């Protein structure tokens, strides 16, 4: 896998702000509020965070699938792909990228397949749209893709309807749909959340194998650090619409610098440490219409002091190259309170 460094990023997200205007004086929900990160060729980037922290909105913004209105991407946001800003692209040029060069796997394999078409038709759809395949060629391609994602007996399965397949098989079909045009980037939004654990492992293995075979970059969005640990090269941790920490996977697990990341890591159940109760981060993600002033994590942070309530920390360099954290503790480590 490629390490960031010499190579140029494939996709660069700069200061992405996606806001939603909520009804009747509810104000503006700043779901994604100044997110920046890069995706390098061939790497797997994990994007981690709780529900409501802006992971999915970020991924939908990249392909401009945000429903407008109520949503809109603020001017000044910039998403560079192939030397062009995706956010100002004409609809026609954007469609030529969607599904062709950047593809997406959705969360719910049960509902992201159309119930009235065979899986073969749906897998071939992107190839028909982008490459104008004939019926016969499309069918042959669908069979190839089914074989690629490890579905047994693809010649008969190609004519099945989604309801005839199990959850794991459906997610394989959804992945096949996304990969049919050999995209350079695959955005996988919680691809395993709706599946049970053994199937999860199979799907993650499949994604890893396909990434190696096709040489694409994968953006893996998940709330499950266990998933990230096994598959991602680098991790972006998001909280309250912002990036709070970025690091290589190994470094993030060995030395997290943001208390939120620490909290997430501590809440993973461990086999080697007996515990009566699971550790959790107190409180919930605040509403996107009313982010706290200062550091957005301070109401839930065990170390917060005055400065955290007043001043919002920038992404600070946390020592090693490529490791950044949005926390004043990086510059004032003596403020850290010992664990109780």
């Amino acid at each position: 896998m490629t390490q960031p460094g010499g190579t140029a990023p494939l996709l660069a997200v700069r200061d992405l702000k996606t806001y939603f205007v909520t009804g009747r004086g509810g104000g503006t929900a700043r779901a994604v509020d100044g997110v920046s990160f890069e995706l390098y060729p061939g790497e797997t980037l994990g994007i981690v965070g709780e529900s409501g922290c802006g992971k999915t909105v970020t991924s939908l913004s990249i392909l401009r699938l945000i429903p407008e209105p109520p949503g809109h991407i603020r001017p000044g946001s910039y998403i560079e792909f192939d030397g062009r800003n995706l956010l100002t692209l004409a609809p026609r040029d954007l469609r030529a990228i969607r599904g062709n060069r950047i593809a997406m796997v959705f969360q719910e394999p049960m509902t992201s397949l159309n119930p009235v078409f065979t899986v073969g038709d749906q897998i071939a759809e992107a190839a028909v749209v982008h490459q104008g395949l004939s019926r016969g060629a499309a069918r042959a391609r669908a069979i190839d893709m089914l074989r690629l994602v490890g579905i047994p007996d693809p010649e008969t399965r190609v004519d099945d309807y989604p309801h005839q397949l199990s959850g794991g098989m459906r997610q394989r079909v959804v992945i096949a749909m996304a990969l049919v045009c050999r995209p350079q980037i695959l955005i996988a939004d919680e691809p395993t959340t709706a599946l049970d654990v053994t199937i999860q492992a199979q799907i993650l293995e499949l994604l890893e194998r396909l990434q190696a075979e096709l040489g694409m970059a994968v953006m893996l969005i998940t709330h499950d650090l266990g998933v990230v640990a096994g598959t991602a090269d680098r991790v972006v941790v998001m909280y309250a619409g912002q990036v709070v920490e970025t690091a290589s996977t190994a470094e993030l697990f060995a030395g997290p610098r943001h208390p939120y990341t620490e909290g997430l890591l501590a809440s993973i159940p461990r086999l080697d440490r007996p515990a009566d109760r699971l550790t959790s981060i107190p409180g919930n993600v605040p509403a996107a219409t009313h982010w706290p002033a200062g550091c957005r994590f301070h109401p839930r942070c065990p170390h917060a002091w005055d400065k955290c309530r007043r001043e919002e920390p920038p992404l600070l360099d946390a020592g090693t190259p490529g490791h950044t954290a949005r926390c004043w503790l990086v510059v004032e480590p003596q403020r850290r309170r010992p664990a109780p």
Partner: protein
Amino acid sequence: MLRTWVSLAVLVAGSTGGAFALRRRCERTGRGRRFFRHPTATTGVAVLTFFVLVAVCAPLVAPYDPSAQPDPVGLQNRPPSWLHPFGTDLYSHDVLSRVVYGAQVSLGVGTLAMLVALTLGAVVGAIAGYTGRWIDAVLMRLVDVGIAVPRMFLLLMAVALWSRLPLGTLIVLIGVTGWFGTSRLVRAEVLSLRERPFVDAARALGARSGRVIFGHVLPNAAAPLIVSAALGIGHVMLLEAALSFLGIGVRPPVASWGNMIADGRDLLTIAPWISLVPGLGIAAVVMSLNAVGDALRDALDPREEAT
């Protein structure tokens, strides 16, 4: 004459046998079982098949030319006999022949006008439901206007523009004034369908809006559309009959069931068969369509989908 009796017998046997064969075949699937669970579904299918076959095989079934007037004096208003099984009318036309050819016109107008209405309704409803915002508002207010104006009035107005209404124009007119309900139905369906994730998935694949609406969303609304079409054909046939009865629909000498009833209305006491036979034809077809429509509604109801 023998040819008429033989072909009628063959058609009756064929449509009954066909309906039962279909029933046997369909009972293997859940949908088919739900369809034929309706007590009237099999009869409905058989009756409809019979009339469609009669219309298709009209030259074979009809004993005479439907517009021939062999003896306008001697053969006027004759009661049913061996040579004229349903009697003759005022102009000495053979009623059976006219009913047989009238089936072509009445069923044809009903089906085609329904197709026009269905297409318009589906397109307008899908566009309104999918795009939303001002396009939806404008289209739906137009539909409100269309529903508020009585349809018969619209048709009468249109008839005033054409002195002699060609059959094609009549079909288009009935279709164009009949899509409002369908568009509301489709819009409601599309409103809920467009929130389903497969719509986002289709957009993420790079499909343009038209492809998403008509290729992905609309096929999911097929079930209610099929049901409303089945019920709608009967409605359109009644409308065509009413228009022809008023003398502004299908014009003689072309026979339609509606203008045949009109022909016989003054002779109801002395020659009731002239109106009665086409009237029974309309009743049978409309009742069968309603039976089939009801059964289809149950069969296609997704809430009953066990899988």
